[in-house]
């Protein structure tokens, strides 16, 4: 054989060899992919109980103190666990605090549950409560709520005193916001050299991406805006509770898609349900719909400083009589709201059953005739168009109802991204606002929406109507330091009555709440008026 033949043979075999390697690599990859698929399929074999959950948004962070919002509180109830929480009737239920007692006017003593573990394995003690309250007082969003507190004092490992500066009637309400964080886990510095307890709104922080709470679930993985996976915490203190072992939370923003995902079986539980799909979900076999009257009040503020006509109490009353709360609830909200005559919903201490919505067009016309503006007047109005359920349509209905008593309203609506700056600047005579009381108490409504505006104390911060009544202020402030529940209720109810009689603003309705799920769950038992479903207690049959 000649050398060149060898060379040719060598070239040929090299070619064959490389082809072979390439083929092997391809096969190998294929094999690997199959193996991966097999591995992924394997854990499904021993029937893990998984809840596929779709909400309109997902938590913005893993740090419960970074923002005070419904989404973050829903998250906190999954991963952290509060000292106490509300049941369906707004009674306080013990969680990490087994019991509590008032020691004196300023001190509430909490007796903590023993044997509770954090996700990190650390033991839960009074030290963690003290750490958490101190952190709350540093959080931009929470420090206002915890302003009345001097802090928490550990008496021993399982006893802690919540101490306030002045007598304070809402200590227990505030304790529902204390979700103890693992003081050991969140102390020191992380590998980037940053303090682990830092609260950071717009950038990386240890607490934004790591968690250790005592809650029923731990965070397994999280891709913000796409998917968060929770797994049941093995050492959770409450053994005889729900049976969900894994939660896969996906945000689905589009209303129609969220409903479709439930109806097609891609998810097991959705919240909230868009009003136009309520009927459909209710009548679908295998699904259940749970609704409840909510506590977010939608109201119109009438700016008495901008428009002299709105300073006339008769005009304001006429407007209240001209607005058909029930009609809007039925026709625009599809019955999915509760007509309101006051701010406090049923169940709040300030609620007075007698303050019903008043719709009487004749009376409204009579009042207008008696007022200083018998021929009506012109007014401007603004409303958001993507913040509250059907907000734009509600505003339009309001404007058209006012036209019946001679008030010509020129309405401008805008997205919420632009709305609040305009609202603060009080650019219109009539402005729409919705409000949820973060203390679950009537006083909060008055402090923000109807007390006289005071830039120093911050009272009346969202009172764009400039309604001001010294008596309402006095009663609201008195209720703040009142610890006798009966007296507090009386004060707040009186304040509510005064505003009703003067029509300081026009309450429209409370938005209802809704959840829909497959029928094989105890959905009804885990939801509540705060809209914090307790998924730890969910049982899938």
């Amino acid at each position, binding site marked *: 054989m000649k050398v060149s033949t060898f060379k040719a043979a060598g070239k040929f075999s090299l070619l064959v060899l490389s082809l072979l390697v390439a083929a092997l690599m391809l096969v190998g990859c294929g094999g690997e992919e199959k193996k991966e698929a097999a591995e992924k399929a394997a854990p499904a074999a021993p029937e893990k109980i998984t809840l596929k959950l779709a909400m309109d948004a997902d938590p913005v962070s893993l740090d419960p103190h970074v*923002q005070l919002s419904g989404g973050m509180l829903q998250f906190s109830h999954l991963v952290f666990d509060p000292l106490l929480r509300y049941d369906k009737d707004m009674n306080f239920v013990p969680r990490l605090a087994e019991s509590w007692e008032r020691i004196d006017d300023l001190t509430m003593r909490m007796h903590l549950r023993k044997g509770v573990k954090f996700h990190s394995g650390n033991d839960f003690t009074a030290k963690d409560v003290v750490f958490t309250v101190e952190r709350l007082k540093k959080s931009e969003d929470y420090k206002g709520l915890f302003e009345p507190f001097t802090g928490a004092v550990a008496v021993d490992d399982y006893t802690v005193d919540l101490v306030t500066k002045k007598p304070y009637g809402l200590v227990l309400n505030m304790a529902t916001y204390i979700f103890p964080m693992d003081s050991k886990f969140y102390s020191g510095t992380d590998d980037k050299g940053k303090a682990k307890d830092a609260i950071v709104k717009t950038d990386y922080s240890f607490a934004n991406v790591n968690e250790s709470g005592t809650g029923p679930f731990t965070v397994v993985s999280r891709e913000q805006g796409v998917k968060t996976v929770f797994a049941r915490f093995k050492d959770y203190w409450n053994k005889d509770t729900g049976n969900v072992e894994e939660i896969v939370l*996906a945000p*689905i923003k*589009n209303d129609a*898609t969220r409903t479709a995902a439930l109806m097609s079986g891609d998810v097991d539980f959705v919240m909230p349900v868009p009003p136009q799909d309520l009927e459909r979900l209710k009548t679908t076999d295998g699904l259940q719909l749970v609704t409840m009257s909510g506590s977010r009040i939608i109201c119109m503020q009438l700016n008495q400083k901008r428009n002299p006509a709105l300073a006339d109490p008769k005009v304001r009353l006429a407007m209240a009589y001209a607005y058909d709360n029930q009609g809007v609830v039925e026709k625009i909200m599809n019955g999915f709201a509760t007509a309101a005559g006051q701010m406090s919903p049923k169940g709040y201490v300030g609620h007075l059953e007698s303050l019903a919505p008043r719709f009487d067009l004749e009376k409204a016309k009579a009042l207008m005739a008696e007022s200083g503006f018998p021929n009506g007047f012109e007014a401007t109005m603004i409303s958001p168009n993507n913040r509250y359920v059907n907000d734009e349509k509600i505003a339009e209905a309001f404007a058209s109802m006012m036209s019946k008593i001679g008030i010509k309203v020129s309405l401008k609506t805008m997205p919420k*991204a632009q709305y*609040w700056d305009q609202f603060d600047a009080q650019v219109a005579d009539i402005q729409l606002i919705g409000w949820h009381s973060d203390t679950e108490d009537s006083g909060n409504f008055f402090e923000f929406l109807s007390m006289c505006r005071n830039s120093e104390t911050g009272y009346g911060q969202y009172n764009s109507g400039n309604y001001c009544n010294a008596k309402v202020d006095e009663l609201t402030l008195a209720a703040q330091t009142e610890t006798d529940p009966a007296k507090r209720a009386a004060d707040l109810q009186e304040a509510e009555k005064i505003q009703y009689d003067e029509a300081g603003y026009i309450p429209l309705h409370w938005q209802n709440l809704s959840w829909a799920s497959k029928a094989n769950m105890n959905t009804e038992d885990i939801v509540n008026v705060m809209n914090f479903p307790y998924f730890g207690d969910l049982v899938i049959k």
Partner: protein
Amino acid sequence: MFAFTVKRILQAVVVMLIISFIGFAIKHNFGDPVRDLVGQRVTAAERAEIRDRLGLNDPFPVQYARFLRDALHGDLGQSYFFKKPATEVIIKKAPATLELVFCAAFIIVVLSIPLGIYAAIRPKSLFSRFVMGSSIVGVSMPVFLTAILLIYIFSVELHWLPSYGRGETVLLFGWWDSGLFTVDGILHLIMPSIALSSIMLPLFIRLIRSEMMEVLETEYVKFAWAKGIKPWRVWLVHAFKNTLLPVITVGGVQLGIMVAFTILTETVFQWQGMGSMFIESVERSDTSLMVAYLVFVGIVFVLVNTFVDIIYGLVNPTVRVAGRQ
């Protein structure tokens, strides 16, 4: 040639400056991102303080200069919502959008060519009339309606296809999250790609049909017939080849428009790509992510256009590209 290339690059830089300026001007007048970052209880003074910390209270030129300086270093700002650099967020979301556009383009190519040719060759046949008729429906139906209809038929009623999201994905090269290599991922891709292609597909069928019909009337095709060449050879080799050129030119432009249409498709299917990310950043007034996206898309378009123009000039010197003497 060199002068031409330099000129094009300079033009691209100017265009980028204009895009970034417009984006930034919008941002400046758009609304307060801090509103979405804080609860209702946070006072106006505290909000102002946060704005100060984020540099949002500085005068417009100062903010814009800072933005340009950082952008030159590849930093397009920080997404307030994601709490991460905006570039990182966008790059993470890009694969989803690109795969969706790719699949939709694939559907368009595979369907429009045979259908367009057939409709041109047999314009009077029943099938051609049906294709042309339904293409009118396709063009006039908005994407989101098509999408919702698809979901209701194939997910809710038939339970054949998943209704939302991307399903199972595989990580390629350490950063590209791909849904093209799992059965679940492909199933999730079907409806969004159909919805996205629904606007362009009829347009392309019509375009191919009319171009082809025109070509079929030309002298050289008549000559080919006269020579007795087989019909399929006349249609495909003689006629269709010459139809393709204008179709490709239009296709290139339309590809960009399709990227814009993903915004609607992605929103309905909860598809986690750049489109839904952009819409959500607008809703949340996550203004720096918004601007970063505009600039990012601007860069991509400018780069592609500049590149295409330069290549054009190199490949075919007789083509007079605008700006070239």
